[in-house]
């Protein structure tokens, strides 16, 4: 068996090593920042297709977006009803609230909200916050206004912190029953859940080292108590009450009409009333790739 493994390793070594670092030669390694870098495209296609999202360094300035129309590298429509719409510029949002500045680790971060504005790429509003020597975009909470000072702290004390809206604390530091948003599944990975306009989750209970949160879909999940979360509801609460009004407005949003073909709906359609699935637990440590 050991001979077989060694021969496998040697075969791997002998056949073309070329791990040219970084740029944009085809690499199958997925980066954690954008999940799309796992594609291996041809050299000329690489220059243009996804270059706008290859930027490593964080910037506050909006980046021009290349629309795909629901098509992938083969050119076919993979996701239907996408295409057209107003031009958009992407503002890089920092979902990892607890990101320390160089040289100021382990101190609570205080930031001032400079501006709350509309983001074309998502339903929620975004806020430009400035603290120390850096500025960044974050998802704004419901009553956030320009001039507010928000705190981010990674400490879990024995007593629960008085939760102010817009502040960010680990789940273990918040009192049970607070409305939270921008939930991290793994500590340090960045917020992945509860980011849409008007959504909020509820911290249900805290069980030795983990916390159980109810998501807006009423599903319950169990995460480590060191996962960072923001207090309050996400901004733009009236988003689900808006009336599109006309087909043209949907086209401005980049939504193409559905196919007009009438199809008999099967067992998959219609309202289903069934019990909640069992609680999903995320407390196993993720792989090294997910942690970066």
């Amino acid at each position, binding site marked *: 068996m050991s001979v077989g493994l060694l021969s496998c390793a040697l075969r791997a070594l002998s056949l*073309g090593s070329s791990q040219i670092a970084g740029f944009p030669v085809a690499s199958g390694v997925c980066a954690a920042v954008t999940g799309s870098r796992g594609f291996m495209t041809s050299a000329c296609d690489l220059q243009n297709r996804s270059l706008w999202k290859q930027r490593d360094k964080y910037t506050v300035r909006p980046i021009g977006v290349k629309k795909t129309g629901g098509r992938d590298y083969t050119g*076919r429509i993979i996701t239907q009803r996408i295409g057209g719409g107003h031009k958009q510029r992407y503002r890089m949002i920092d979902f990892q609230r607890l990101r320390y500045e160089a040289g100021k680790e382990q101190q609570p971060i205080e930031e*001032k909200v400079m501006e709350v504005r509309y983001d074309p790429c998502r339903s929620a509003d975004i806020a430009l916050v400035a603290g120390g020597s850096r500025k960044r975009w974050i998802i704004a909470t419901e009553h956030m206004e320009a001039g507010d000072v928000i705190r981010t702290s990674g400490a879990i004390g024995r007593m629960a912190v008085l939760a102010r809206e817009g502040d960010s604390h680990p789940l273990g530091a918040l009192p049970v029953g607070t409305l939270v948003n921008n939930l991290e599944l793994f500590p340090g990975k960045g917020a992945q859940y509860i980011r849409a306009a008007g959504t909020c989750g509820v911290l249900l209970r805290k069980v030795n080292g983990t916390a159980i949160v109810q998501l807006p879909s009423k599903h319950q999940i169990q995460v480590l108590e060191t996962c960072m979360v923001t207090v309050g509801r996400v901004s733009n609460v009236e988003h689900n009450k808006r009336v599109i009004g006309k087909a043209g407005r949907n086209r401005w949003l980049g939504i193409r009409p559905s196919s007009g073909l009438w199809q008999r709906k099967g067992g998959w359609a219609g309202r289903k009333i069934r019990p909640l699935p069992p609680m999903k637990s995320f407390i196993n440590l993720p792989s090294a790739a997910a942690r970066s």
Partner: protein
Amino acid sequence: MLVKMFKATVQRVSTSALKISQNRKSENFHSVLIMIPHGRCCLSTSSCLYGKILPRKKPRVVHEIAGLEPITYADRMHFVPGLAKPKFPPWERGWKEPNHYQSPKLEDMPLYKDKPCYIFNQRTNVLEGVRQALWLSKSVLIKGFPDQILTLAEDPANQIENQDERVQNAIKSSRLWDTTEHRPPRERFCPSLLNGLLHLCGGLQVTHPELAKRILAEKYSLAATWRRGEDVFQVRGQNGWLLNSMTPLPVLAGQEQIQSTADQALETFYPIAPTIDLQNTHVYQEKNDTGFREDYPYPHAHTLFLMEMGNAPKLLPEQLRAKMVMFTFGNALARAQALYGKEPSVLEKPIVVQSVATNGRLFQFVVFQLNTTDLQSDSGVKNLVWVDEDQPLYEFAKVKPLIKKKVVQVPAGLSGYQPDTFKKFLALYLHGAV
């Protein structure tokens, strides 16, 4: 076995055929080859004979095992199928070719220093505006135009004949008469307006010969370095037009006012650090350069003219005032260090530098008095800044009148002319020579 091979060949044939055409299932289940020019169409079936795209296989990842050297075909000098690709050291030319020059890493550059430096250059757009500029230059703000200079312009002996009419002509010539289009671009009418106004002011040399001892420099580069707390700050770059004179400007504030600034506290803006938006670099040179040689016949900076013409970057009036304050401070500091040396100290003869900034219509006036070069601590004597904000010279200069619902809202030509703004401009010009 044969059936398998046949099926495999059928698959390969159909996938290659896919590149030119698509197979479409008709109702009779006959596959019909249709030649479509673009070669694709939406398919709802997912059969592998009919256009399923297999996901691309990721390339084989070759791991390096420590202690094991891969056997390469470097000795054989040609590709050999079983051996690894050799890794050669990067080739160096040996001499510097400018077309193919790769700069060294930041850490290897000769001017690299461990301590970072925060540089305010001509493209900086500070977040906190004038408050940040005041903290960086250790100054105290006084709102409003200094009265001594304003009285200069009120004096009828100092005014130009037909002043208002000639100023209005200057505005019209830069805004309306310069081009046949409706409005000239800002990059064009802003400098031409400033040129016109300076030309008018220069016409007073007949009655005031002291005004002749001045010169306007267009593209000069400023460099000034100072330390504040534990950080090093610099002001660098080409910023605008500088009017130099042979004689220095007289001091505006008396000693009592200067000493009273020592009691006033500098305004901080927690949680934002004062170094925000400044260019942070480890490769820098601590340079103090006024932009002119030492034997220049006009050694004293008189007025700095800044133009905000829009795009790189677009500065709001608050940020424009901050840029003015920083560059006047830089000019004053560079000249103080040229005259009195680099030792930080309180100046016996404070240095005064003026500044005018415009975007073609709105004017901002700043007068900076440098009292001390001891900027390390936050306490002690501070510098003084007089800021006069947002003075419009005129409201509208339109070629076609703005008519809404058959009522003229804004007439054609120049409208809303404010004579006071030019008086202040003239006063700043005359200061020091009258």
